[in-house]
């Protein structure tokens, strides 16, 4: 099953490499990983998505917790949560394609953020599934370049991952 794990990490040099090292060392897969500082300069926040059975996920969270630099973590997929990913995509846009891409982008509530004589650059935000669906809709033939941020996540409601 796909899981989204949010981690508060000491903002120390080498901390991120310990997280990444753990995954490669123990053969767990990382689908995506995002990391940035938080409002508290001593902490970074990571969101990582991974796929595994319950036993593997349990080991992953335990091992993450065991890292000295990990302050707290939560498996967001255990409860109600919001996930977002941002994607920038360059697509071929010539002739009739231009209108077609525009329409498709509107349907997905994306924005065309840059326009060239034969390309559009589109920005799209949403769940990973939604971004996948847009890529499908546009079709491989039109896609020139894709960059995705990876998932950021937060729980719904009152629950807060903080110190």
């Amino acid at each position, binding site marked *: 099953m796909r899981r989204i794990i949010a981690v508060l990490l000491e903002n120390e040099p080498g901390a991120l490499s310990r997280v990444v090292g753990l995954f490669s060392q123990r053969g767990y897969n990382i689908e995506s990983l995002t990391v940035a500082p938080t409002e508290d300069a001593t902490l970074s926040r990571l969101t990582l998505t991974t796929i595994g059975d319950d036993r593997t996920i349990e080991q992953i969270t335990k*091992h993450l917790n065991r890292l000295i630099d990990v302050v707290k973590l939560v498996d967001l997929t255990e409860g109600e949560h919001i996930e977002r990913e941002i994607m920038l995509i360059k697509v071929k846009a010539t002739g009739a394609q231009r209108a077609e891409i525009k329409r498709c982008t509107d349907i997905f509530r994306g924005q065309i953020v840059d326009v060239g004589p034969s390309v559009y650059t589109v920005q799209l935000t949403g769940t990973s599934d939604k971004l996948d669906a847009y890529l499908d809709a546009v079709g491989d033939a039109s896609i020139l370049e894709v960059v995705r941020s990876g998932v950021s996540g937060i729980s719904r409601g009152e629950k807060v991952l903080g110190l």
Partner: protein
Amino acid sequence: MELLSGGEMIVRTLQEEGVEFIFGYPGGAVLHIYDAIFQHCDIPHVLVRHEQAAIHAADAYARATGRPGLALVTSGPGATNAITGIATAYMDSIPMVVLSGQVQSHLIGGDAFQETDMVGVSRPVVKHSFLVKRTEDIPETIKKAFYIATTGRPGPVVVDLPKDITDPAAKYEFKYPEKVKMRSYNPAHRGHSGQIRKAVNLLLEAKRPVVYCGGGVILGDGAELLTKLAKDLNLPVASSLMGLGGYPGDDRQFLGMLGMHGAYESNTAMHHSDVILAVGVRFDDRTTNTVSKYCPTAKIIHVDIDPTSISKTVTADVPIVGPVSTVLKEMLDQIAEMGATDAQTLDRSGIDNWWEQIDEWRDAHGLWTAARYDTNSNQIKPQQVIETLYKLTGGDAYVCSDVGQHQMFAAQYYRFNKPRHWINSGGLGTMGFGFPAAMGVKLAFPDEQVVCVTGEGSIQMNIQELSTCTQYQLPIKIITLNNRALGMVKQWQDMQYGGRYSQTISYKDALPDFTKLAEAYGHVGIRVEKLEDLETKMKEALSLKDRLVFLDVAVDPAEHVYPMQIAPNGSMRDMWLNKTERT
């Protein structure tokens, strides 16, 4: 206000931490530190002949004393030489702090002379590591390193120290923190009482219980409590390689080591048990045989300080995360309470049948009750060497071992009655560990008999330390079970590769005369070739209290270690009992 340089701060911090020995080797990046040691340090420094030996010595000092070891190495090759030692300590959860020199801060990342990314290289084999950026941070960082190394599940911690921050000319205020707190590190300090109650009930109801004692019992100082629990409830005890000494080895209730080369009665009892109380173990693959066939009728109570050990390979029915000593203590308290309200609950006659069954197994194939090797051959059997050692030392010696057949024979035939006396590399299986380990133990306990049981292969991996033993007058007894082969590997080639001895006997005519080699370093060398000389010569060696003696014993090169579990696809009870007979 006291102003100190970085080098001086390191010395002071080590003193404050109560460090007894610095095991180390100098070099460019640690020159400032060594100068501070020269000028200000009253902690003895032990100069090894290879950094790997410094780490093993510090590691074994920790294993034997329960206090953290300390090693100091230079950058680059000094640091990389230390890695095998650090990995060895990591696999066996040994508390240790390793200070490594690093190139000057402004050179880091530029492929400077003797630069290695030590934090990076060591990352998978440390509990934690630090790269210190500022001189002022030295005391607190080293304090944290000791705190992390010794609490929770212990392990090695690396502190990497760029040369410029130890500069004698740059002095800063020295403040030694009384305490450290880390918001991100809070090891469990007690087990869950409800879970402990469940465990106690399960254990009291069991008809075929076994206690499975692991290295965590030794590390967590739980041997006495575990022994009391087993005694009070008349429970049979099996032990992993790392748990030996956690329960008295010569006691009737001790079934012996379990696992790949475990005793017949131990593995068989595990297989047929209905409740296993596993304490301080991690169900390593050498202890379970095929996991899917592991102890099919057993409910498993698993006590360990590290949650990641629990249900990693074998699923626990009653998991208890906590220090083994406090958990065992609470189990004993709960049992006492139950006994006080209803004495009937502590009636143990329900397991009499189980003991009868175990005794039958023991009589049939027990290590100590049945014939396990040919006593009428005209060669010295390796088992006889260990039995003789056990007899002559009364089970009181510190036995440091290397890796191979000799290690398994030592584990099987030396009955460890006390914790922290069996010092070996269980998790990593590091050849070359035993001898430097013996140095660390001998320094800690100069009046105790410290023996290194080794093979002619393993001893050559750190034999240069004979010189260190000359320098510090360390009267260790090295007993080499010399089979002129990489015996353990050769055994596998016998059993699984049609006896094709690829590179396992090729050195047999190129071995040194170990007695002369020992003499060259100023030690005593004794060679034993005949069985009738074994006991007298070993006695002589052990009686030379002030000398290192290299006792080189020619043993039967054809001997295999048995029992040996059958793999792949075998269960705990599937074993070869000798070359032709299996269960």
